C-alpha cells in the first residue's frame, strides 16, 4: 500500500466518522461542528485529487460561510437545541435500511461499470486548472450560461430568503 493510499484511507475514515456524528449527535451546534470536520475531510479529498482550487473553495464557502449560517440558524431556533426528546423519529430503522440499500445499490451498479477501478493519468506539466476554469467559465462556447445563471440563482436565493424569513406581517 502506498503512502497516498494510507492517507486516503485515514481521511476517508475521518470524513465518514464525522458524517456519522453529524446525523447522530443530539446537540445541534455539535452536529454543525461535526459537519465542519466532514467538510474539511472532503477538502482534503479534493487536494488528494489535485484539485487545489476546489479544496480551498470548499473551506472558504462551506466552513467560512455555510457552517456559520447553520450555527446562526440554530441559535435563532434554539428552543429545540437542548430538549431531551429523541432527535430521531420512530422509523429510524427504516431510514437506516433505506440508506444502507442505497449505498449497496450504488456500489453494486458501479461495480458493473468498466471504468470502475481505473487509475488516473498524471496531470500534464504546466497545467493550470484555475486559468482553464476562468477561460471556460467565460467562453461563449463553453460555460458562460451556467456562469450567469449561477448569479441569477444566488440572487433568487438572497431575495427569497430575505422575503420568506423576515416578511413583516
Amino acid at each position, binding site marked *: 500500500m502506498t*503512502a497516498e493510499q494510507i492517507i486516503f484511507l485515514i481521511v476517508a475514515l475521518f470524513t465518514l466518522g464525522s458524517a456519522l456524528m453529524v446525523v447522530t449527535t443530539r446537540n445541534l*451546534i*455539535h452536529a454543525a*461542528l461535526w459537519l*465542519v470536520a466532514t467538510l474539511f475531510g472532503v477538502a482534503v479529498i479534493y487536494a488528494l485529487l489535485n484539485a*487545489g*482550487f476546489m479544496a*480551498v*473553495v470548499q*473551506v*472558504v464557502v462551506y*466552513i*467560512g*460561510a455555510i*457552517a*456559520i449560517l447553520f*450555527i*446562526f440558524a440554530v*441559535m435563532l431556533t434554539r428552543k429545540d437545541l437542548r430538549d431531551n426528546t429523541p432527535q430521531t423519529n420512530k422509523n429510524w430503522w427504516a431510514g437506516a435500511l433505506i440508506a444502507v440499500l442505497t449505498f449497496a445499490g450504488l456500489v453494486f451498479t458501479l461495480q458493473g461499470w468498466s471504468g470502475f477501478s481505473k487509475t488516473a493519468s498524471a496531470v500534464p506539466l504546466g497545467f*493550470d486548472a*484555475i486559468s482553464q476554469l476562468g477561460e471556460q467559465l467565460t467562453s461563449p462556447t463553453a460555460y458562460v450560461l451556467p456562469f450567469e445563471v449561477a448569479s441569477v440563482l444566488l440572487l433568487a436565493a438572497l431575495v427569497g430568503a430575505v422575503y420568506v424569513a423576515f416578511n413583516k406581517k
Partner: protein
Amino acid sequence: MNFWNDPLKVAAAWLEGIFTGWGMDAVLAHVLVVFLGVFLLITILMVLDIFLVWIERKVVARFQDRIGPNRVGPYGLIQPFADIIKLIIKEDTTPDGADKVVYNLAPILSMMSVLILWAVVPLAPVMLGIDLNVGVLFLIAAGAIGTLSIIMAGWSSNNKFAMIGGFRQVAVMVAFEVPMLAMLMIPTIFAGSMNMNAIIEAQNVWFFFISPLAALIFLIAAIAELGRAPFDLAEGESELVAGFNIEYSGMKFGMFYAGELLHAFTFGGFWAILFFGGYRFFGLEQVSPFLAILILVIKAMLGYWVIMWVKYTMMRIRIDQMLGFNWKFLTPLSFALVLVTALMNTLLRGADSWLFVTGMFLSNVVVGWIALEIARSVARKERERVEGVKAVEAHH
C-alpha cells in the same frame, strides 16, 4: 549554489544527506526535513510574537505620551517573557457548564489559523514557502478557520457576554470579508495569477501606485478582520466586557492574545506583499535571500505600524455604524472598483507602462471621489432629515 545565495536548499540537502546516511528512506527524509523547516519557521514566528508584545506596548506608550515597559531588562525587553511566565503559572479555569472539548479547541484553532497563513508567504525569491496557485484564496480560507474559532469560543464558554461578543465579532468579520475578497481580486487581475509569488513578480510598479484605493480598502477590511480599533467591539468594556474570550485565562487567553498580535503583523506582511512589492526593493532582493527577508520584515513592520497607528488614534465605532459602513458603502464601492479595474485593465492592455499606471491611478481617484461625493450627499440629506425632525419637535 552556496549558503549565502540559497540557504534553504543547501541546508535541506545537507540535512537530507545526513538522514539518508542513517539509512532512512529518501522520501521520509524529505518529509522530515520539511517538517523541521516548518517547525523552525513557526518557532521563529512565536519568538517574534513575543517581541511583538513589547513593540506594541512601546508604540502605544509613545502614542499616548508615556514611556511603556522599561523596568525588566534593557528598555523593558524582558517584560514579555515575564508576562509569559505569568501566563504559564496562572490557574487555567474552565467555567461551569462550558463545553469542554470545544472550549479547549477554540484557542488552538485560533492560533493555528494565524500560523498557517505563513505557509504561502514568499520570504525571498528562493524561499517561496509553499507555491500554491490559490495563495490569495488561502488567506480567506485561513480566515474562515479563525472565524469559526471565535464562534466556538463564544458559544462554548456558557457565558452571555462571550456569546454575544463572539456573535457580534463574527458578524463584523464575515461582513468585512466581502470587501476583502473583492480587493484580493485586484492584485489577481493585475498579476494574472492567485499565486503570491507571481503577484510579487508582477509588481515592477507597486500595485499601491496602480490601485491606491484597493490598498486602502484592503487595509480597512484587514483591520476589521483583526478586530482592532476602530472595529474592536469586543473590547467595549461597558457592553461586552471582553467579548468571546472573557472566560479564558492563563495560556489559553495567551493564545488568543498572541494570535491577535501575530495576525496584525501577518496582515501587515500581506499588505506589503499584495500592494508594496513584498520582498522586492530596487533589485536588492537579488543580492541575498537574507536581505530579501529583511526587506519583507521591514515592510511588514511598517504595515503593522500603520495598523497600530490607526488603532491608537481612532475611536471605536458602534456596531450598527460598522456594519452599515461595510454593507452600504464599502461593499458596493469595492465591487465597483473591481469592475472598473477589470475594464481599464482590458482597455489599457498593451499600452505603455506609464500610461497604464496613470490611467489606473486616475480611475481609482475618480471612483474614490465619486463614492465620497455620493456618501457626502446622502449624509447631508440624512442630517437635514434628522435635524428637520428635531426642529419640528422643538417647535411643538
